[in-house]
């Protein structure tokens, strides 16, 4: 092989060899033969790669990257950290089972933002995969969060109705430079979004919680709603934060001047004498739903606050990540292991039936005269070439209680008209239809292996005294085993990934893991779990593919006989 290539690439190579028997071998152009050969080889490699490159690139983009995306989605878990950034940060500093006030305050801010951006429902859906009840918890509290701190806001505005004015807040908290740019923006009136709010140094230092709460409000108002902070009254959260700041730092007013100082002084006094009540977010959350006071809720949030999670994979094998590590799910929530087992068992049954039905056919075809075999081969190839949907429709029509098969059975008197067989919407339906669909994939490899078995072997066995059965079983059958292996792996690979046929004829008991994947993609929208289930299935298939490659060699795949 290598020899042929050398002579092919460099016809003058041999000449060079004879020309200089003593020194280094030179090619015709005087360069050393070794270098010349290497260059030629490199050029050949490059040419081959250039020819392959477009397709490889195409497959990478249209096929491999999608599979990669699926792998990524099966571990990706950005949603908690993205939706509740403040809570996740605050939880890191608070290891207690049910965290303290700072975490609840962060949660109130995050949740208020999430409600405005309508992302809390998605977060609830996500967390509900891990712990039942999280979805209604977040939806319910999401409705309540806006009203939290209403008492405080009322007390503050009751004290001085200037606090209802958006301008009061801007004057108190805004950075003078921002006020300047904001005024220019307002004058320009060019429909661009308002410049992002920036707080003054004094406010940031003395009223840190207020600034944080106001920033959250400003971000939603400006970026999401496209409004101006100069026209919107801040959330209750800001009032609560301001009261809390003044309670913690009664002298904060001294950092401000003019009206701001006067209002803050008045407010500080009201906070001190209890006119403005002290409220606890923790209490307000627990009032909204008792679950906020339970360690379980927070352990779920803590466990799934990381950006990547094994949660979906655990879920895919009926496990879950609890506070004490990995544990089994409740028996009534376990479905996937059972489904994997069912998929494997049914695929095995289908493969087995294919062997039983395919072997005689392949044997017959391999031993008939060429002309007859070719003719009969059409009976195998026509189903092979016929659309999967056509064959499935045929079975759906045939297997019905009022279908052709039951009609014939009733007509033959095998079953009574009242006891028509249930052949569809169950495992029987899936097995009958899928065996039919996969049978050609068994027959074709078997046939090509059997074609290669010399007839003289069996004849020799018989002439040595073996009877028909012994000759077949001891001599012929062992030689056909590679065909069975190839056909079985092919059938099995195709069977475990099937979706359409089980979906249409399988009912609830005759469906495969694929149907569950499809369900999670288009009905439950649990894409992470769909991706994890898909990845596990893919791993199984890849293992079989590798075995097939070992056994048959992927280069030897033949199509259509």
């Amino acid at each position, binding site marked *: 092989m290598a020899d042929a290539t050398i002579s092919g690439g460099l016809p003058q190579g041999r000449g060079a060899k004879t020309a200089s028997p003593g020194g280094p071998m030179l090619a015709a152009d005087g360069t050393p033969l070794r270098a010349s050969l290497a260059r030629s080889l490199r050029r050949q490699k490059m040419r081959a790669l250039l020819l392959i490159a477009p397709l490889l690139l195409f497959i990478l983009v249209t096929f491999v990257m999608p599979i990669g995306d699926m792998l990524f989605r099966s571990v990706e878990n950005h949603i908690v950290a993205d939706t509740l950034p403040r809570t996740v940060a605050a939880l890191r500093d608070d290891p207690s089972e049910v965290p303290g006030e700072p975490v609840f305050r962060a949660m109130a801010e995050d949740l208020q933002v999430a409600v405005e951006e309508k992302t809390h429902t998605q977060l609830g859906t996500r967390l509900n995969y891990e712990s039942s009840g999280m979805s209604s918890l977040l939806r319910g509290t999401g409705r309540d969060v806006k009203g939290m701190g209403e008492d405080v806001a009322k007390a503050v505005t009751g004290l001085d109705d200037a606090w209802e004015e958006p301008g009061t807040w801007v004057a108190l908290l805004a950075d003078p430079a921002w006020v300047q740019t904001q005024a220019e923006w307002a004058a320009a009136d060019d429909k661009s979004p308002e410049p992002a709010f920036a707080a003054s140094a004094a406010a940031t230092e003395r009223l840190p919680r207020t600034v944080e709460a106001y920033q959250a409000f400003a971000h939603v108002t400006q970026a999401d709603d496209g409004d101006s902070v100069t026209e919107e009254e801040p959330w209750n959260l800001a009032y609560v934060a301001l009261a809390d700041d003044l309670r913690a730092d009664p002298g904060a007013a001294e950092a401000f001047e003019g009206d701001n100082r006067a209002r803050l002084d008045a407010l500080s006094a009201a906070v001190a004498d209890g006119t403005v009540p002290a409220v606890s977010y923790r209490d307000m959350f627990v009032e909204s739903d008792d679950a906020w006071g339970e360690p379980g809720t927070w352990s779920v949030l803590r466990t799934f606050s990381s950006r990547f999670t094994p949660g979906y994979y655990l879920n895919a094998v009926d496990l879950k990540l609890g506070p004490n590590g990995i544990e089994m799910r409740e028996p009534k929530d376990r479905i996937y292991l059972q489904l994997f087992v069912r998929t494997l068992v049914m695929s095995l049954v289908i493969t087995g039936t294919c062997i039983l039905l395919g072997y005689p056919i392949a044997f017959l075809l391999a031993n008939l005269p060429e002309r007859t075999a070719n003719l009969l081969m059409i009976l195998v190839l026509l189903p092979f070439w016929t659309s999967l949907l056509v064959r499935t429709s045929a079975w759906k029509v045939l297997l*019905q209680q009022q279908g052709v098969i039951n009609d014939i059975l009733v007509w033959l008197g095998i079953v009574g008209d009242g006891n028509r067989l249930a052949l569809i919407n169950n495992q029987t339906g899936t097995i009958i239809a899928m065996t039919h669909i996969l049978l050609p994939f068994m027959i074709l490899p078997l046939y090509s292996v059997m074609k290669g078995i010399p007839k003289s072997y069996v004849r020799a066995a018989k002439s040595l005294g073996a009877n028909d059965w012994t000759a077949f079983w001891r001599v012929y059958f062992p030689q056909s085993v590679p065909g069975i292996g190839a056909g079985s792996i092919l059938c099995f690979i195709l069977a475990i990934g099937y979706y359409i046929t089980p979906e249409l004829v399988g009912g609830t008991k005759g469906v495969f893991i694929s149907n569950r994947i499809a369900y999670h993609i288009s009905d439950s929208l649990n894409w992470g779990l769909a991706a994890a289930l898909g990845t596990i299935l893919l791993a199984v298939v890849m293992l079989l593919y590798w075995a097939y490659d070992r056994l048959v060699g992927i280069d030897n795949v033949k199509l259509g006989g």
Partner: protein
Amino acid sequence: MALPVYASTGQRVWHYAFRVICGLIFFYLIAPILVIIPLSFNAQDFFTFTPEMLHLDPAGYSLKHYHDFFNNIDWQLPLWNSLKIAPMATLIAVALGTLAAVGLSQSHVPFKGAIMAILISPMIVPLIISAAGMYFFYSRIGLQGTYWGVVLAHAALGIPFVIITVTATLVGFDKSLTRAASSLGAGPLRTFWKVQMPLILPGVVSGALFAFITSFDEVVVVLFMGAAGQKTLPWQMFTGLREQISPTILAAAVVLIAVSIFMLAALEMIRRRNERLRGLTPA
């Protein structure tokens, strides 16, 4: 497999029993496909043989389901979509696939095994997984629910078939022919079109047939990837089967069977031609 004259009674019984068994299996293979052909001419909206049909009464048969298939927009639109998607997917698959197969048949291809495994993978990976991955990824890049999204996905699924069939013809390709061509002064392109292409054409054509039928019959990926504007014939059949089975599905099925028979005949012709050519070439 003829029965020898000296066969014992047991052997005779087994010989015929075996043929009966094989006959039954052949029946199982082909009957479901054949049975829907007469059923599609049912004058009633039933899925079984009516008494009129069993008595071969012409009144029991009609073309109304075909009439519906060819006149109803619910079926015509998907048919046209299929006919718009499949050829384009085939074209892409064949163009890129043939080029790559020629590349793969060179003597020194680095990472040949790995490359081959990647190129064949769309055939091995279960369709539901390909569909899921493509749905996720094509959504990200804005191709989900578009014509080109479906075409690219179908092309990817058809490529392994092109690779396999074309590589198979290239295995038997006599390299001295290209060498002869280049020694006679033909450039690589000219050599490819004038020498190599005609010889591997049967492989390219069968690959194209496979790629076409892959796209034309494909339902899982288009179900996830497509939007209303890309509804194909198999998609329409799937929805029909899952929801309400109208007998028009049987007419559609018979049309698809006709397509399969045509494809099968075309492949058989290519195979015969190959055999003839091979017979003529001196060993």
